């Protein structure tokens, strides 16, 4: 039937495959197939000797195609394609038969597993026998990067990329970059001031010639593909010109509207015209039009009146900018699980039950209480503070199943800071476990327990409620086996981290996946932690999962390095397994044109024509065409037909 000369190489994978699948039988059976010239087994095909055996066999037997029956193609398809190339073959003449993840690892019966492995391998042989040699399609790249999210992850990635010579567009939806890190007071384990370590980076971003900073902006849509994306970025109406604003505060002084300050987590108020933080970048005031009296000089207009710099313009309009970029880094960060979800802890009803970020604002010198730890309800100093870890985390039944990673450390930090502020106060921490794996972390926790005298109680809190002005905490100390009741002045909940609002929407816009908890999905949990499933889109920071600042910075730099590698070549290689039209059969009905998700097919002179650069090879066209006039190279209908025959043993 086929004039091809195929070699089949069956891997034992140590005992991973061989323990269940009789690999020698698989090789022997495949050796009987028409067109299979050579069929061998080997203990580790992906190893050097294994690959060399393939190369040698190709050369000695003049093979024109190879099938490797081994683990999932996600792992070693590239490896073996390169080995095949070394043997003188086109990489696409190599096919992988997955007899490990989809066979040996999931079945017990040796006979059945071996039979299935034979069918899978045979199917791969038929596919390989239908393959043609293909060369990657060269696509020019745009040497510009879009970073979505201006927290520490976005900032770090922006600096790394800009310093490598790439143009960067940093988009942030708030009026200032800095993210949640800007809200922190001190960072563990060194207790550095968060603003002190972050501000220099923020300033560097604002001054870097290669970075274009777009705040109050969101990415509306993204089209295109790796190396050649187009994005539409919408910027809100910017009423205060950052170039002109002198940050003199005259406007805020006359603004009649006061609203809760979201940067202080509602612990203070701000005016409709305000600056988010003293260290905001861009360094400018900003007008919140949802709080403003109406931008109508007849109604109000006080701020524009007093502004000497004439920086305020009520007629500003939202703008949309279209940009072309080669890669995207998504660093959209996290938010805290809402207190309102924890009914047993007061469901957000008590002013003195705070979450971690609110506590940070209390500790922060620029915060609601000038750096003094005071109760929000009556501004009295709390003498008994209870910290509750795992508020919402590690709770698969009701809240989040996962561990939020940083809470043990920041709770120790909070307890420690509290004791520094209120030396005669008493701090209690209710915990399940202590996770303090980073450098200096364990020592930090021990100091909190021993030096700062914080009482650590191993047990959960069942209920928190108000009684006579105190917050009553009912918990248990499992190490002594006793129930604990504390009349606290303040309770701080270490709320679970969750993906920031807007992450789900952004994932849809970018067409990248999310995992079961809504975090952005990485391409491989171990080997590709900063790549999304979509080529050209990378992940950094807590958007991908809970992590602390050192890990975030690491990931941001890692993502930057991936982008640098991607954009380092003049041309990108686009997978050549694209659709192809058999013109003689095409009647120009346009069904494929309508169906193509990438609009990659056009009707030219009455026949369908595929744009190979836009085509992603999904095959929707091929499944739709009633005439089999369009097919995807190396995944043709003939090949699938032969694979079905192989699977069915006919």
């Amino acid at each position, binding site marked *: 039937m086929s004039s091809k000369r195929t070699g089949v190489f069956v891997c034992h994978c140590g005992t991973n495959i061989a323990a269940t699948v009789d690999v020698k039988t698989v090789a022997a059976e495949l050796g009987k197939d028409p067109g299979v010239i050579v069929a061998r087994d080997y203990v580790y095909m992906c190893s050097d000797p294994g690959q060399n055996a393939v190369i040698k066999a190709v050369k000695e037997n003049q093979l024109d195609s190879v099938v490797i029956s081994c683990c999932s193609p996600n792992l070693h398809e590239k490896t073996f394609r390169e080995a095949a190339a070394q043997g003188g073959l086109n990489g696409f003449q190599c096919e992988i038969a*997955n007899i490990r993840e989809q066979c040996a690892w*999931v079945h017990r019966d040796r006979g059945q597993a071996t*039979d299935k492995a034979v069918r899978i391998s045979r199917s791969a042989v038929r596919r390989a026998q239908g393959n043609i040699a293909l060369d990657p399609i060269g696509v020019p790249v745009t040497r510009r990067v879009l970073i979505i999210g201006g927290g520490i992850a976005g900032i770090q990635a922006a600096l790394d990329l800009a310093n490598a010579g790439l143009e960067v567009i940093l988009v942030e939806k708030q009026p200032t970059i800095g993210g949640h890190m800007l809200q922190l007071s001190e960072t563990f384990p060194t207790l550095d001031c968060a603003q002190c370590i972050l501000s220099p980076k923020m300033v560097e971003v604002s001054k870097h010639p290669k970075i274009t900073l777009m705040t109050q902006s969101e990415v509306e849509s993204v089209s295109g593909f790796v190396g050649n994306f187009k994005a539409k970025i919408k910027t809100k109406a910017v009423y205060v010109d950052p170039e002109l604003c002198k940050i003199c505060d005259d406007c805020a002084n006359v603004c009649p509207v006061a609203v809760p300050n979201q940067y202080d987590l509602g612990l203070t108020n701000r005016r409709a015209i305000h600056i988010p933080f003293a260290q905001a970048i861009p360094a400018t005031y900003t007008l919140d039009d949802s709080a403003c009296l109406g931008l109508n000089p007849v109604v109000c207009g006080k701020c524009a009146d007093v502004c000497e710099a004439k920086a305020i313009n009520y007629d500003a309009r939202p703008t949309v900018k279209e940009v072309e970029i080669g890669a995207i880094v998504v660093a959209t960060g996290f938010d805290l699980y809402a207190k309102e979800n924890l009914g047993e802890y007061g469901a957000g009803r008590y002013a003195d039950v705070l979450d971690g970020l609110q506590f940070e604002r209390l500790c922060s010198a620029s915060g609601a209480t000038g750096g003094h730890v005071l109760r929000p309800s009556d501004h009295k100093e709390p003498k008994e503070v209870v910290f509750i870890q795992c508020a919402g985390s590690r709770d698969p039944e009701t809240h989040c199943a996962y561990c939020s990673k940083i809470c043990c450390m920041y709770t120790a930090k909070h307890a420690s800071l509290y004791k520094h502020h209120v030396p005669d106060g008493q701090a209690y921490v209710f915990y399940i476990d202590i996770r303090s794996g980073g450098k200096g972390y364990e020592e930090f926790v021990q100091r909190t327990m021993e030096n700062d005298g914080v009482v650590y109680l191993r047990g959960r809190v069942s209920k928190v409620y108000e009684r006579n002005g105190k917050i009553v905490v009912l918990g248990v100390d499992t190490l002594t086996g006793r129930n604990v009741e504390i009349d606290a002045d303040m309770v701080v909940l270490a709320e679970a981290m969750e993906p920031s609002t807007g992450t789900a929407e952004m994932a849809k816009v970018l067409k990248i996946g999310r995992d079961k908890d809504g975090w952005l999905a990485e391409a491989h949990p171990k080997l590709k932690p900063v790549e999304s499933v979509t080529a050209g889109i990378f992940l950094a920071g807590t958007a991908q999962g809970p992590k602390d600042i050192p890990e975030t910075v690491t990931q941001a730099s890692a993502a930057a390095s991936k982008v640098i590698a991607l954009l380092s070549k003049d041309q990108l290689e686009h997978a050549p397994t694209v659709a192809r039209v058999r013109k003689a059969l095409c009647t120009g009905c346009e069904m494929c044109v309508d169906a193509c998700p*990438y609009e990659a097919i056009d009707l030219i002179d009455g026949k369908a024509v595929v744009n190979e650069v836009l085509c992603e090879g999904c095959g929707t066209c091929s499944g*739709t065409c009633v005439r089999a006039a369009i097919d995807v190279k190396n995944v043709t209908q003939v090949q699938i037909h032969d694979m*079905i025959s192989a*699977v*069915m043993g006919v």
Partner: protein
Amino acid sequence: MLNPTKAVAALDTDFEPKIVAFLCKWCSSAGSDLAGVSRLQYPANAVPIQVMCSGSVSPMYILSAFKKGADGVLVSGCHPGDCHYMKGNFYARRRLYLVQKLLGFIGLEKERFRMSWVSAAEGVKYAQVVDDFVRDIKVLGPQRRLKARR
């Protein structure tokens, strides 16, 4: 004139169904890989054929599998809205709905053709889908209606 076939629901314990499973590369095949990485165990009756997208599955593949004697055919893709190629699974859903209706109309047992959405994170679901399918096909017995007689 042939006698009309009587349905034989043989609960033949020796009967091992042969199922062809078309799995999309990005979700369902990855989900199947995850089931493997997690060492979940499920019956060996379903042999996978990896396609790029559930949208590329032509009705001919399913009919051909049945003609070649498949006892069951499974097509599995990404959840609607999560297709790696954005929309392929929506076309698959419409097209394969019609295939299922047509096969049912001519009297092929309804349970023999099945479609599922399995994401790359759903190793457990994949194992369950296969497990359920094999069990249901065993009740139906060997597929004789569309199998070509040689």
